[in-house]
């Protein structure tokens, strides 16, 4: 009989230990509030615009669905896709973006007959190509030339990016300097990949990057507007 009595008290105890205690509830609420605060803060702070792989051009839809599974980074045949570092913002960290120093996006033409593998493997359809998507209308970014750092703009005898561009989006203007044709450029990054500035030595001392780089379209628009303003004044 004593055995039975003991069990009675124990079942009371167990109800308390397995159920939601006040302390547990407070901990849960605290953590839930922390997650809400995190979401809100990240949203308010905002994040830097990044070039996204094919199918990730609608940034809001992309960021809503990306679960940072690394599949796209791993399948990329040219290894141009890299995880964005934390410097690009907490929201961007670990999401796929390009490092055109490592390669360029040929839309998987060479390896997979023009079917971008990143969009193919994405498990949450964060990368999703619209109907009729082709390299010419999937705009990942735009090339931008910093004239002071560019060999061709300084000495007029470099034509590597003009020759390499697969979309004929870089040409020489009437004065013989290379310019980007924005309506033809899709941000594939080959120009940045082949640009010889900064590879072994700097062409000018204050250069921090290659002379031609691919940046998100809105960043390039901003830079060009700034350039034309200052150019008009001087």
């Amino acid at each position: 009989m004593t055995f039975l009595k003991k069990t009675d008290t124990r079942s009371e105890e167990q109800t308390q230990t397995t159920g939601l205690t006040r302390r547990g509830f407070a901990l849960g609420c605290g953590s839930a509030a922390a997650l809400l605060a995190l979401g809100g803060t990240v949203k308010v702070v905002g994040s830097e615009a990044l070039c996204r792989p094919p199918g990730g051009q609608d940034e809001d839809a992309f960021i809503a669905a990306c679960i940072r599974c690394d599949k796209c980074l791993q399948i990329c045949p040219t290894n141009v896709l890299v995880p964005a570092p934390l410097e690009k913002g907490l929201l961007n960290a670990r999401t796929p973006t390009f490092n055109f120093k490592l390669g360029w996006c040929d839309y998987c033409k060479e390896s997979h007959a023009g079917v971008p593998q990143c969009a193919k493997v994405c498990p949450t359809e964060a990368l999703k190509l619209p109907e009729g998507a082709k390299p010419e209308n999937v705009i990942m970014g735009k090339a931008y030339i910093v004239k002071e750092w560019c060999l061709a703009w300084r000495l007029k005898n470099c034509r590597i990016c003009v020759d390499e561009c697969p979309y004929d989006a870089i040409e020489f203007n009437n004065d013989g300097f290379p310019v980007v044709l924005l309506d033809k450029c899709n941000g594939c990054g080959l120009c940045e990949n082949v640009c010889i500035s900064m590879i072994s030595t700097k062409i000018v001392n204050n250069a921090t990057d290659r002379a031609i780089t691919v940046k998100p379209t809105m960043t390039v628009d901003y830079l060009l507007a700034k350039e034309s303003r200052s150019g008009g004044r001087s």
Partner: protein
Amino acid sequence: MKFIKNIKSKNLRALVIIFISILIIVAGIFNSALSGAGNLSSFGYSLISTVCPLGALEAMMAANTIIPRALLSLGVVVLLMVLVGRAFCAWVCPVPLLQRWFPGYKGKKDHPDNQQKTLDLPQSDSKPAGSGSRGYRIMRSIGFDSRYVVLAGALVSTAAFGFPVFCLVCPVGLVFATIFTIFRLFAFGELTVTLLAFPLILILELVVFRKWCTKICPLGALISLIASVNRFFRINWDKSKCLEVTEGTLCSLCHKACSRENVDPRGKVLATNDLNSCTKCRECVDACPSKAISFPFLPKHKEK
């Protein structure tokens, strides 16, 4: 098989976790052979792939649409859960193993929940899954605890701000992100703040919140919810072998061994919340002096 049976469950679990982690890392680094295998958030190839159920749910809530591919992978996950239930938490997830390695880890011996827990044979027959109001009964039947509050918070935050919020701080994701960041440092010379920040967030989560798995983890909560579909490898208590039944001794070593989830393997009919909570870690099997507990593939025929 005999060799495997001789290893303590704790060490066997560690081996399995390390094996799976190494598989994921190798597949990620030598990506030409197993291209696009992904990390633990979505491991597998193309349509035959698992997906983190929380990540998939968050993605669908944030994108405000049904994502067919995510649903398909979720189907794979549910099928796995039918087979092994909540085993992910004990056999795959690297977090409990890491916690064991951090200094200050408290073994089960000095766990506060570890008072004498004795058998309640008379009640187990007559006690229904719960009593009281309907809401209370539902809460009892899924083993409602603070993890579900965090899960609700994660989902509300995701719906409100339009991106998978928990993914940013998920320790499982951060473990693999840290490893791959270290790999990229050597392979591509990418030196970033990430290298320092991710391990710091990870340590903060695992050392400050020692009870991450049982009190906070919303992924564990979601897995517990899905684990009610589990049909195989369910815990089996052989009454005819149990010392408490045959000899009347106060043993309860199996229940004590389950300090994390507080499952009592001796329930005649296991309550649903026990099934949801059980991670099939086999600590109770190891603890039982008379080998009365097992995890048979098919449920054994119930004794009367």
